[in-house]
């Protein structure tokens, strides 16, 4: 009865900053939830809203987009553009009915292993709270807490 559901999170990490942060977290043996699947992207500006929606359609419970801090982008402005895109996507999909917790963004530099751990933990816990992604299931979403109970 009691399902062993674990949130599945996909992370699009910029290869210059956030991916380095994740790497550092690993090499410095920090613990973070194993629920994240990481996809390395050349820049947070590479993340198309399509990626986000496709991940949700494929059944991932949440999406994390992470790039360099404002001003630190390897390509000067990629993360600023990503910010506009993410803001619009997140807010718009919220209007369509996708919980805002499922789409998360962060700025994590290559040295911020601690922040990476923190963000992934928080996001994962947030997803645990709102329950599994049933958005694209054929049948109407039943009581989401039912599965968790």
């Amino acid at each position, binding site marked *: 009865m009691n399902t062993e559901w674990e949130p599945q999170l996909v992370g699009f990490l910029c290869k210059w900053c956030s991916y380095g942060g994740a790497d550092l977290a690993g090499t410095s043996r920090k613990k973070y939830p194993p629920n994240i699947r990481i996809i390395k992207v050349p820049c947070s500006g590479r993340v198309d809203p399509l990626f986000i929606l496709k991940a949700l359609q494929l059944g991932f419970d949440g999406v994390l987009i992470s790039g360099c801090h404002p001003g630190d982008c390897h390509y000067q402005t990629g993360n600023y553009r990503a910010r506009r895109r993410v803001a619009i996507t997140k807010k*718009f*999909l919220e209007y369509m009915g996708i919980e805002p917790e499922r789409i998360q963004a962060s700025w994590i530099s290559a040295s911020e292993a601690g922040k990476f751990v923190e963000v992934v933990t928080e996001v994962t816990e947030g997803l645990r709270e709102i329950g599994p992604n049933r958005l694209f299931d054929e049948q109407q979403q039943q009581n989401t807490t039912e599965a968790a109970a």
Partner: protein
Amino acid sequence: MNSNNKIQQKLRHEAGALLEQNKVDLIIGFEPGSLKFTTTPLITRDKGDLDRLVINPFIVNNLAVFLPDIKGPDLKGPKLKGRVAIVAKGCDGRSIVSLIQDNKVRRDNLVILGIPCPGMIELRKVEKLTGKDRDELDDIIREGDKVVITVDGKASEFPISDVLFDNCLGCEFPTPQDYDILLGEPTAPFAERSAGQARILKGISPQERWEFWRREFRRCIRCYACRNICPSCFCQRCFVEESEPQWLMPVPRWQENLMFQAIRTIHLAGRCSDCGECERSCPVNIPLRSLTREMYDLVDELFHFKAGMAKDAPPLMTHYEQEEAKDLIR
């Protein structure tokens, strides 16, 4: 109506002069449609066609859709070489400016014949109001802020706001932002615009909203009328037609339909002028404008950006400010 007649006269005259003096090669306007209470786009190089140009409360199409040389996936539009004179209402005008911002059309190839727009009559609303289909109505006459609808020989009067499109009721800029010739006097927007806000889904839970869209998009047949009628959907190849990777199955299942429309609307951020053509053209009546208007309001809220206001301004998504949307990022 009288003022329409005058504007129409002037339009025919100006269009004729433009063709005659070789200032443009092509006129894009409206002519009477083949059905009662409809008009249809008139795209012509022939001066003889110009006495068919009309201005009335049914000139609904956003003619800017014909401007980009290439429209849709490998889909060539009419051969628009040379200079074009185009009839534009407020929203159409903003779509044109938006196309100029996106480098899809050059301002100096255009002569914009601006129409100060008092709002267009939505036949679906008239049908609902009278309980009759369009072809069963005898007459629809607009008189200022009233409309007189005649059914079976019997005339009834209604406030004009009962029959105008929602986007017209909520329109902020009924007079084109940019024009070469303005036909008539600039008009003011409606004082009370809340009826046109279209945020029909505020105040219900995310689950209920998703449920709503799931139900609506079950009906979608993926005819792509919403995309093809939209002046801002000018991609040479739409993402739904990509095959490697294939983002979406070409089959009309609600999951794919919904995703298509979500991404299409995101692509419209900063381009959509809220002309409402997507919703009007939808053959299965999906309230698409609820989505596009939300996007319209969102970009205004987040970035204080309104589409198609200044032709020299950079497009929304190519630009950024140092300080914005900060609370959305961890």
